[in-house]
């Protein structure tokens, strides 16, 4: 009896889980980046491969428990013993795993091994407890140097710029929201002023940690205008859940206007 109940419960759980995954009850939001489809495809691929293993594993478990629960008489071993199982594991799982590594490395490579486009728009991103700030180089195309000791958030000097002494810093534009032109390659440089943080935009399929002491490049191209959430995914303290900013993907002309407005607010 217990065996039959167990089998039924396992099958039910398996089917409900599979149903929820296949019908996307809760699912990834739209994909707005050029590299994103590769990641989505890899996730679909893994769902297929791992999902089959999941269903097969649970169903076989359930059916053996169903069939042999409470059996009597002389027990027997599976014909062939363990050898076929080990071979199966090596061959089937091995190939599966190799295939995933191989295809997966392409998806990963598409994101990380491609050099950023030289024409990319460069934006500096600074994370700190518990907000992001963004910096555009302004007309001179140069970012002013950072002086951490000058950071004074109350005076809105979030980056520690010294425009009075550094000519490059004079026209830097610091914003609380990141605006980018659609279809244009973007190169972000991430750095943190205090602890580890992360830059996660679900729709962009981009997640990258900020590591204090390092400047970490991230590049992507967004292909759909809109306003998206950037959230912090690296535990950074009490305001972690409230650490966010918005990404506005704008048409080129809207972007130009937006940046002008931001420059005027400095």
């Amino acid at each position, binding site marked *: 009896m217990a065996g039959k109940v167990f089998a039924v419960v396992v099958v039910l759980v398996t089917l409900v889980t599979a149903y929820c995954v296949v019908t996307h009850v809760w699912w990834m939001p739209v994909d707005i980046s050029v590299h994103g489809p590769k990641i989505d495809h890899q996730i679909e691929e893994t769902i297929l491969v791992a999902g089959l293993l999941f269903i097969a594993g649970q169903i076989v478990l359930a059916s053996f428990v169903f069939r042999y629960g409470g059996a009597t008489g002389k027990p027997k071993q599976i014909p062939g013993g363990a050898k076929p199982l080990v071979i199966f594991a090596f061959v089937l799982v091995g190939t599966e795993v190799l295939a995933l590594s191989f295809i997966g490395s392409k998806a990963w490579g598409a994101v990380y091994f491609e050099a950023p486009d030289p024409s990319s728009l460069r934006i500096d991103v600074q994370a700190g*407890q518990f907000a992001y700030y963004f910096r555009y180089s302004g007309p001179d195309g140069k970012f002013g140097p950072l002086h951490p000791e000058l950071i004074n958030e*109350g005076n*809105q000097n979030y980056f520690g710029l010294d425009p009075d002494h550094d000519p490059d810093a004079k026209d830097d534009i610091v914003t609380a*929201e990141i605006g980018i032109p659609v279809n244009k390659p973007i190169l972000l440089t991430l750095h943190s002023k205090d602890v580890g943080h992360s830059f996660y935009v679900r729709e962009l399929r981009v997640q990258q940690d900020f590591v204090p002491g390092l400047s970490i490049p991230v590049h992507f191209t967004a292909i759909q205008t809109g306003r998206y959430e950037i959230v912090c995914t690296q535990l950074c303290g009490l*305001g972690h859940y409230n650490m966010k900013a918005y990404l506005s993907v704008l048409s080129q002309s809207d972007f130009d206007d937006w940046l002008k407005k931001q420059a005027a607010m400095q």
Partner: protein
Amino acid sequence: MKTHQRIGATVFALLLIVAGLLRSTPGVRATAMGQVTGTVKLDGPAPHQKPIDMSKDPSCAQTRGGAPASGENVVVGTDGGLANVVVYISQGLNGDIPVASKPVTFEQKGCQYVPHVVAVNPGQHMTILNDDKTMHNIHPDPKPGGGNNAFNKSQLGGGPSLDVTWTAEEIAIPVKCNVHPWMHAFIVVVKGPNGVSGGNGSFKLENVPPGTYTLTAWHETYGTQSQKVTVAEGKPVTADFTFKAK
């Protein structure tokens, strides 16, 4: 607040009572108290105050009803009155200086502090309120070793108020919210009567016992200025300050 602060405050209060009993003055002399009023002005153009972009937390804009926000390092009224200047008596108060019994309130409203500068006596209660929908953390940073304890504590939107006291005089303890990094304020802990200038630059010190004092005005950007005043029984005195714009 923090346990040791609470203990500190209690001990302080007890000491005051004991001190009072020991001196056992036969009845408190009912002197009529004086008053100092005045205006603080800024001489010259006020520096540009950057607008604040609060888009990081949409609930800020909601509670502000769309009112724009800008920095508050220098707030000048239409006729040149300089706000957020603390005026207090830096010399001349002797003996037991009574602690104001009414708590001061310090609010977080529309993702800014109201007031931006608050003056409080050591031992006086300070009530911290969060009128916003969002969470703020209150993170004052007093000088290490100065007698006041740093703390860092969050307060949920509409959450219960916090009660804080400070033990030592200190000018000025910066306070920040890290969730909204632009939020900053100063807490000035001074003994005796004090006042903070309002939007038109005017201030008022009440319950000043008669005597001659050094009156000091402190501003977060322009520093301090002092002058002598003599307060007579029941008669208000005026004292004005003018800070030079840099």
